[in-house]
């Protein structure tokens, strides 16, 4: 069986950044396994701009952002295999993959970095009643059809869910001549960026209907002919007396992303029921020694810049593990309270000798005028005032070396919201 230092599973933004960073940290025997025929992952179909403001200080499109990292991989001669689908990962760090050229292959690695990204939640994931007709797509599938294959999924469109992909596709379908009749959002707020609501919907007078959902899909000759939407009450239950029918031939679903953690599961990695990703320590190592996880497979990010940053850190830590072995013995657990829905990493090594630790988190609801605070055994060691926090925007707190040193003495690290008012 082939042996190598690090196998990176997935050649999207997380995998590319992790591989480059591991290489820079001195572990150069790396293989990236990518199931598609190209590196770059989902960025290749995200042809809109707005990527890279933090990383490159300019607004790039998805393919341009991906290319910057691909070039770093090419320049270093890091090995990558395309059309290679990983089908198993074990706790002893054997990776099994299949490809047309090589058939079934196994690699024994010293470390594995899982950067498999996420999938879109499908219709079955939200149980929409009605016809099983043609014309129902996830927003990302429609994005691939339009941008990569040059095919239009339909002419008259209703979009369920106002996440960023749904908003972006409302504009994209409009650009290609479709009529987007409405974007329907179950919640009383959008999880998408304001900027996308303004530039993708308001610019084209596309109505955004909050607290509404699709209750029925009707079809003629096997194709969607209309959807029935209704307002929901404060328990998110449809109020059928408000039902209205919208004629359309296409329904796009933008109803959430699910980290793709089947491989992590096979290896016995402990998963978080909140993030649907692995439980990791401050070096992004999972509960299985030598298996790391970062990017959208760990938790869904809103900006690719943060994916790159997190993955660079994971790559560096994986290289360090390959070179120096396991160091951690004891951990300080982290947790989110009072409106902080989760914190990643979920634990911090007590014997970690690091300069800084980034804590990434999301809140459960929108709050105004809050103080985002970090408590160590109840004592406030960090705080930041925020005019607003929303579930759609990830918050990051970076703790410097002085605070990291204090954490080692503690037993519990809590991230919490103080003095907030619910929006």
């Amino acid at each position, binding site marked *: 069986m082939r042996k190598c230092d690090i196998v990176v599973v997935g050649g999207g933004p997380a995998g590319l950044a992790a591989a480059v960073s591991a290489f820079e940290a001195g572990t150069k025997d790396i293989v990236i396994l990518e199931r598609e025929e190209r590196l770059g992952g989902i960025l290749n179909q995200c*042809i809109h*701009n707005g990527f890279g403001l933090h990383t490159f200080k300019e607004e790039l499109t998805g393919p341009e952002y991906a290319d910057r990292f691909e070039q770093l991989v090419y320049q270093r001669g890091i090995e990558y295999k395309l059309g290679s689908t990983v089908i198993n990962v074990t706790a002893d760090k054997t990776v099994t993959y299949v490809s047309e050229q090589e058939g079934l292959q196994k690699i024994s690695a010293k470390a594995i970095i899982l950067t498999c990204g996420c999938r879109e939640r499908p219709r079955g994931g939200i149980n929409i009643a009605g016809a099983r007709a043609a014309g129902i797509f996830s927003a990302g599938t429609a994005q691939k059809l*339009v941008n*990569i294959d*040059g095919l239009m999924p339909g002419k008259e469109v209703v979009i369920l869910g106002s996440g960023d992909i749904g908003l972006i596709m409302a504009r994209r379908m409009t650009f290609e001549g479709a009529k987007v009749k409405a974007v329907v959002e179950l919640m009383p707020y959008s999880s998408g960026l304001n900027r996308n609501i303004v530039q993708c919907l308001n610019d084209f007078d596309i109505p955004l209907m909050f607290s509404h959902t699709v209750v029925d899909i009707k079809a003629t000759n096997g194709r969607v002919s209309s959807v029935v939407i209704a307002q929901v009450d404060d328990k998110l239950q449809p109020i059928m007396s408000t039902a209205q029918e919208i004629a359309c031939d296409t329904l796009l679903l933008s109803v959430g992303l699910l980290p793709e953690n089947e491989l992590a599961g096979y290896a016995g990695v402990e998963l978080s029921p909140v993030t649907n990703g692995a439980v990791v320590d401050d070096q992004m190592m999972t509960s299985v020694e030598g298996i790391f996880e970062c990017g959208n497979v760990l938790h869904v990010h809103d900006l690719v810049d943060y994916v790159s940053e997190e993955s660079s850190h994971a790559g560096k830590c994986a290289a360090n593990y390959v070179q120096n072995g396991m160091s951690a013995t004891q951990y300080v657990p982290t947790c989110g309270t009072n409106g902080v829905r989760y914190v990643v990493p979920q634990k911090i090594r007590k014997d970690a000798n690091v300069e800084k630790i980034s804590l990434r988190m999301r809140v459960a609801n929108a709050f105004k005028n809050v103080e985002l605070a970090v408590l160590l055994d109840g004592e406030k060691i960090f705080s930041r005032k925020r005019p607003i926090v929303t579930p759609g925007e990830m918050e990051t707190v970076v703790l410097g070396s002085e605070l990291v040193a204090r954490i080692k003495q503690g037993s519990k690290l809590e991230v919490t919201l103080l003095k907030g008012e619910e929006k």
Partner: protein
Amino acid sequence: MKKFICINCPLGCHLEVDDSDPNDIKVSGNTCPRGKIYAINEITAPKRMVTSSVPVSRSDLLRVSVKTSQPIPKDKIFDCLNEIKKAHAEAPVAIGDVIVSNVCGTGIDVVATRNAHKI
């Protein structure tokens, strides 16, 4: 009185703009100075980046993605898209290659945002 939602941050301030006197545009509803600048730009010269894709021949890709090299006037978006729809690229294409020059007389080019290798 015109209304905008500020896009500078998640706060999404609801801005109201009084442009009855073009030399003294009044903005209210903003929490910070960026909101005022945004509202004035939106009312005097709104601009947008346009992104799309065009067919590419002699490549393993079917289409190559494109963007305007700079934001174009908002009222030119659909004219610009119509010009992009008529365009066609031939591999090899490199990021930054001009696909449509001086689109709609704006002086701004439509450029490739993806490399397409020749096969």
